């Protein structure tokens, strides 16, 4: 069975600093996809970044980047130059090409002024 684990329930970071959120996953599939979603206080979930497992290069979207370690089944999210608007709940998720998306329990990130 697929699982996604986020072991950091809460984190905080000073504005302009860098923070890394951890995620580990387990799957028996060879082809799968990994995602980070952001859920701000408004509750609307939005995609931050995604990674295809067959790509060795780590995905990057502006200040957001991932460290994808396939052998270790690790998929961490790095936020550089943290901004107050980054305060949110962050969910790691996986999909193996079926209808099913598996979500972690989330990490609540607070950016401090």
């Amino acid at each position, binding site marked *: 069975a697929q699982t*996604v684990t986020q072991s950091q*329930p809460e984190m905080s970071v000073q504005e302009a600093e860098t923070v890394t959120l951890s995620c580990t996953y387990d799957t028996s599939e060879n082809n799968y*996809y990994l*995602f980070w*979603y952001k859920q701000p206080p*408004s*509750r*609307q*979930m*939005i*995609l931050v970044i*995604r990674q*295809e497992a067959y790509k060795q290069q780590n995905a990057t979207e502006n200040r957001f980047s991932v460290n994808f370690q396939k052998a270790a089944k690790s998929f961490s999210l790095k936020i550089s130059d943290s901004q107050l608007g980054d305060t949110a709940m962050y*969910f790691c998720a996986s*999909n193996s*090409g*079926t*209808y*099913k*998306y598996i*979500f*972690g*329990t*989330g990490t609540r990130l607070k950016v401090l002024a």
Partner: protein
Amino acid sequence: NAGVTQTPKFRILKIGQSMTLQCTQDMNHNYMYWYRQDPGMGLKLIYYSVGAGITDKGEVPNGYNVSRSTTEDFPLRLELAAPSQTSVYFCASNRHVGADTQYFGPGTRLTVL
């Protein structure tokens, strides 16, 4: 595009009452989902649909029903509401599975007293 819209945003029900949560997407997506999010937990799949006329159960379908008569609409019906159904409900959709982004509605906060 409005994306995924959900109504209502908030609702309080009494035990034993019934209600329908509405979900509409205007992106012509094949896949639609209903999740519930309990405090401190990730998203749990209630029901999903792979196209008009086709629905199937997720992890936690008991106490809920769905229908998908059109591509756009995917209502969730709660029959005989119970306190255990107090949660935030999210509707989501995507065109394909795998690398495709899931688009989420703003959520419905439901309280059953």
